[in-house]
């Protein structure tokens, strides 16, 4: 093997607002935000699949932007505001999550936290998204159970519900 071994050496302090609370951690400099959440902060709701930004399973909102947490270093979140699936679910199941269940969108479930994060971001940025816009916006989140139709239905129903409530 010719690969040079990874030798974790330096550690960095990180302070951020995580789901509304101030959090501090000291992590290896190379640690991704995904691994920091799961391994250092014990928040395993953000799931890990490809770990290279291709599947969307680890989607979180960093300063309001939807990001793959596997492509962001934990250190980069320093000073930021981070929302994860645990934050979304803090007060129980949301209208959107309820629509996921009612539409039959949840099968094995591993991609679902990431789908919920992407869908929540979409509802906030484009509350009147068309079916095609929903498909486009969600296309970075893979689901091997292929609940795609169900998820689109869930997002449409949640959007309709929010328009009625508004």
């Amino acid at each position: 093997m010719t690969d040079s071994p990874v030798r974790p050496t330096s550690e960095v302090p990180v302070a951020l607002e995580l789901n509304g609370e101030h959090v501090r951690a000291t992590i290896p400099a190379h640690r991704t935000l995904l691994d920091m959440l799961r391994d250092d902060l014990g928040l395993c709701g953000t799931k890990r699949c490809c770990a290279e930004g291709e599947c969307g399973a680890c989607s979180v909102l960093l300063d309001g932007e939807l990001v793959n947490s596997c492509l962001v270093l934990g250190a980069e979140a320093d000073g930021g505001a981070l929302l994860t699936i645990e934050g979304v679910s803090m007060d129980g199941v949301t209208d959107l999550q309820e629509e996921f269940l009612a539409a039959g969108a949840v099968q094995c479930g591993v991609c679902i936290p990431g789908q919920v994060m992407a869908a929540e971001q979409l509802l906030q940025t484009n509350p009147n998204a068309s079916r095609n816009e929903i498909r486009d916006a969600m296309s970075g989140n893979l689901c091997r159970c292929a609940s795609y139709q169900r998820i689109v239905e869930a997002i449409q129903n949640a959007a309709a519900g929010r328009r009625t409530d508004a």
Partner: protein
Amino acid sequence: MPDENQGPSSNGQIAGPNRVVGQRVHRYGGVDRVTGAQRYLSDITFTDAAHVAFATVPVGCAAIDAIDTSPAVAMPGVIAVVHADDLPQPVARFGISHKDRPVIATKAVNYHGEPVVAVVAETEDEARAAANAVVIHYTELTGVYGLDAALAGDARLVQDPSVRPGDDLNSTNVLEQVEYAWGDADSEGASSHTIIEDTYMFPMVTHFPIEPGGIVAVPTDDGGIEVYSPVQHPYLLQRTIAEVWSIPLSRVRVIAPDPGGGFGGKQTPRYEPLIAFLALKTGRTCRLVLSLEEAFQMMRRSGCRIHARTGFTEAGELTFHEMQVDFVVGAYADVAPRVMTKGSYVGAGPYRIPRVSINARAVLTNTVPSCAFRGFGAPQVGWATESQLDAGARALGLDSLEMRRRNLVQHDEAFIRGDYEARADGRWHESLEKAAELIGWHEPTPSGRGRGISVGIKPGATTGLSQSMVRLLYDGSAMAYAGTSDMGQGARTLWKQILADELGVDLDLITIISGDTNAVPFDLQTSASRSTVFMGNAVLAACEDIRDRVLELYAEATETAQSELSHAPGQLVTPSGAISLVEAAQTALGGLRGEFVGQGTSRLWGTKGHPLGGDASFYEFNATAIEVEVDRVTGEILLTKHVTVGDVGTEINPLQVVSQDEGAAIMGLGHSLMEQMLFDEHGQILNLGAIDYRIPTFNDVALEMQTASVENHDGPGPYGCKGISEGALLCTAGAVGAAVADAIGTPVRDLPITAERVWRTIRDANCDSPD
């Protein structure tokens, strides 16, 4: 305890005053899944766990000359560095049909990704760093990576003959072969008006579960071991660990967290015996979490080449069908021989054919061992047979729906003849007609588009054993113990529904226990869409057992003659009228309280001599219709409509049926349009990873998609249900292929039908007949 129960049970009736069977009940465990609280294997915390990483070589076939572990041993945090020489000799091999897979690569590497060295370290980073530091000296050998290379007379043997002692085929790369035939070869010539002969390819594809998976092994104080693995068959894993390391079953506990997607890829043990060894050797909890790339190197569907020759009368009736079917199974058997046997058994499709001859082989190559994958061999062979029917229809100027109408068997008509015939267990024409209706087959195809319609069939389980236990507790809540792994199909939701109806208990008061061999009775496996039928019948029987016991104790407690009492779903019927079963149970239990425990067993014995080991308990039948638009300049395909109809018997949970059918149908688009594992000349997989490999996304779903069911309550499971979950991908490829051929005028015979293949097909057709 009730008699063993197999066959129609409460057949055809939707039971119980609650009537939640048949309702769109939300998924058991759904809330945890939407909130992120669900704990899959890699989310579970183990105190003081050591971490495992593998070292491999970047080729598919090599002799291992020497291994230098010293650079790794010296690295921080390293606890152990283990290779074949460190295991008890000879290194144990395991497997279901063939004990051919070594616990770790022994003297040779037989596929790209086969673990050669395992490193145990304090952290995941340290384990991976040390695995990178291991130096494996190897000599690359000329591997066999394709069918022609594997079947050549002078081909290198993937497996040394000593691995399969006494096997007539052990000096070849053919692992197993079967032959199915019926009818008289002499009679066909006169009756055949048109004969079609062609070769079809089906790609190697990988399961790509969103949870790649992993294993944790915990040594226990009594010399035993606990193995955590998100497997579909916990009891098979328990048996394998016990056999490989000579530990009694009672001291091997398998805990199977819900698999985050299985699709057949998480059935059989692979690295569990090795991780168990590491734990026993180091005395530490050992944890392996796989990367997605490692999951690609652990599971795939067998690729397939099918050569077919088919005869038709002028009216489009099939006269004969011959096939040579070669499955590319990979380096070790896993369950691939069974995939080959079962898939080719139904290779001629659900048709009325006077003469059939199918020769099938499972061929070893230096590639990832293939295993079960949704459809289990049927999609591969069906791709060729359905394409042959369409080619026949084109040659005869016949509509492809009409072609199927003329050949599809009627209810109870034999479609497999010979010594062990199989008959249609459903009214399959209803599914075909419904699919045609839903896609608007009778309406003209819009300009620039093409349509295809196709059918598929798969035998369900041919033997089976599921045992269940149900407890009705004093307060009217209930628990069911059922060993089915809930990997996304939603099995536990159905057990809840059955309990709710049969015991008259609120859905919210029911808990299902699964995934722990120390707590849950035996279940053979979660595969072949069997669970709703087999475990469903076992759960139903356990509920009936409870009602019997309530009746008996109620009679004793109230001094009523048993003959004056009877029970019905959710009820005990007394001389003064029906009361709820829970009320009756409380009266019967009295001041001492306690509970009722019921047991149920569903067992299907095989049939001696049957090529599948027994008759299928049911068949999954599906009709799929697809409409596409093809860009003739780029070859790109736009799916405009996608319809599937399944013959399901009874929908116990319509919401879950739709989820599973849509999921299977879209998964079928993967091998039809985009998915294929690609290898270089060294046997290295070229497209490891999500983007390079490419599975269907939101944007690949048809503009209009609809799944539907035919319910005739004619299945062997509870309330007349059959298994579902695989049907909707059995014939996706056939329908896509027919639609593309309809649109561009020429068929594509190799899957996946990529834009490049379509473009080349159009170009080649134009070259053949220049305007």
